[in-house]
């Protein structure tokens, strides 16, 4: 479980994240939703430690990540996997080397064991026979799947996904969503997904946190969204005229 307590983050004296408190459960897909500029990416970066919150604490299973020294943080980080918006695969490495990277850095497996794990992860995300291709040779969906394979290679306890569906067609987006949910359930990991894609919310949103102007505005499940009377949430969810009419 991941808990964030009273997180504040300022840029140039403007509060981008204000008093955010939320918990993200193990074995569930926890979604942070909100329109662009609502602060969800900043919150995610504060959680994984890419940004230091100006106030508040982040707990990984009762371990206060914010108060840790660099060495302890690096230990926790070995338990994290993250899928970035653009995949963030290393351009200079082929797919096999990319997925093997965390194993090379942090394990003492033999080369054969590492290769077996890489092939298992690639198979798990339905990517076969692409070991020796480079990221530039893959489609957007394949890059995302390869990035998921890298994120799960070292058996993470926590998985973070920043806009996993951006730039993907609706069908591929659903494949990626379902893959993330399956992995979450299968390995019982705590997954946090940052998205503004309502298809994702309705497909995999076990727990949903809605952010508005840097604050947590609403919390619930995907079913609760349909019955919510929260004005800002409804305005976000039913953005198009068609959906407004349907509601």
């Amino acid at each position, binding site marked *: 479980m991941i808990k964030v307590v009273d997180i504040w983050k300022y840029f140039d004296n403007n509060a981008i994240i204000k008093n955010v408190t939320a918990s993200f459960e193990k074995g569930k897909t926890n979604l942070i939703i909100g329109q662009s500029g609502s602060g969800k990416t900043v919150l995610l970066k504060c959680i994984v430690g890419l940004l230091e919150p100006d106030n508040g604490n982040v707990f990984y299973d009762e371990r206060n990540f914010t108060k840790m020294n660099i060495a302890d943080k*690096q230990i926790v980080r070995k338990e994290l996997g993250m899928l970035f918006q*653009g995949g*963030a695969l290393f351009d200079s490495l082929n797919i096999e080397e990319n997925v093997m*990277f965390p194993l090379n850095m942090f394990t003492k497996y033999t080369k054969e064991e590492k290769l077996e794990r890489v092939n298992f992860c690639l198979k798990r995300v339905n990517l076969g026979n692409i070991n020796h291709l480079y990221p530039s040779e893959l489609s957007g969906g394949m890059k995302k799947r390869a990035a998921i394979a890298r994120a799960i290679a*070292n058996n993470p306890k926590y998985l973070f996904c920043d806009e996993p569906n951006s730039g993907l067609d609706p069908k591929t987006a659903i494949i990626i969503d379902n893959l993330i949910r399956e992995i979450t359930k299968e390995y019982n990991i705590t997954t946090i997904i940052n998205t503004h894609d309502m298809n994702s919310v309705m497909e995999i949103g076990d727990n949903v946190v809605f952010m508005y102007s840097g604050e947590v505005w609403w919390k619930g499940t995907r079913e609760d969204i349909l019955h919510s009377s929260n004005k800002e949430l409804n305005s976000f969810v039913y953005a198009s005229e068609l959906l407004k009419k349907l509601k």
Partner: protein
Amino acid sequence: MNLFFHIGRYFELMRRVIIIPQKASFFRKQVIVEIDNLGLKSLGIVVIISIFMGGVVTIQTAFNTDHPLLPIYAVGFATRQSIILEFSPTIISLILAGKVGSRIASEIGSMRVTEQIDALEVMGVNSAGFLIFPKIVAALIINPALVIISMFLGIWGGWLVSAFTDVLPLSHYMSGIMLEFSEYDITYALIKTVVFAFLITSISGYFGFYTKGGALDVGHSSTKAVVFSSIFIIFFNLVLTQILLA
């Protein structure tokens, strides 16, 4: 942002860069890759420039020291001293600042804007040390080798001019390049080269690492890396020359 901010942030970055690598075997492989990328792939330009500059220095010296009181072999002596003391360590380092510096800044800058550095950080990798330290070590190893090659080729360029033109007789050139050779000149040149190698890689790494924005900003970082590396090479050339030769 003022100069002191950059100086402070540069030293803060170096504190993260120059530490024991997290995985020694991985680090060794990276150093070898960087020796190839930064050094061996620069060999062509070093060879061409050194031969031609050696020839030009010989011709210029011969035409500008045409005086009855100056012995002809002084041309060879002046060529050798110019090449060993200044041309090979300083000019070759300036050329490498352009070629290698822009490569480092754009490579690391691109990784920054495509979140590859964030990916390293999230995994628990010391991204600064992982990306910049192997480049520094590789340059400290390979740049002195490149400069020594450049010295030989520069002097050989002068030999070619003497052998195939009538600028000066070959025997006088050979006498000149062997006159009063001091081993300390080589030591001085190599000390300068090592300092310049550190400046090129660390300054370029700094500008690449702190790139913000997109493709345009990677270009800006690359330009700044070359400009500031060159300025610091020139500045340290003056300082080191005063310290080591005065």
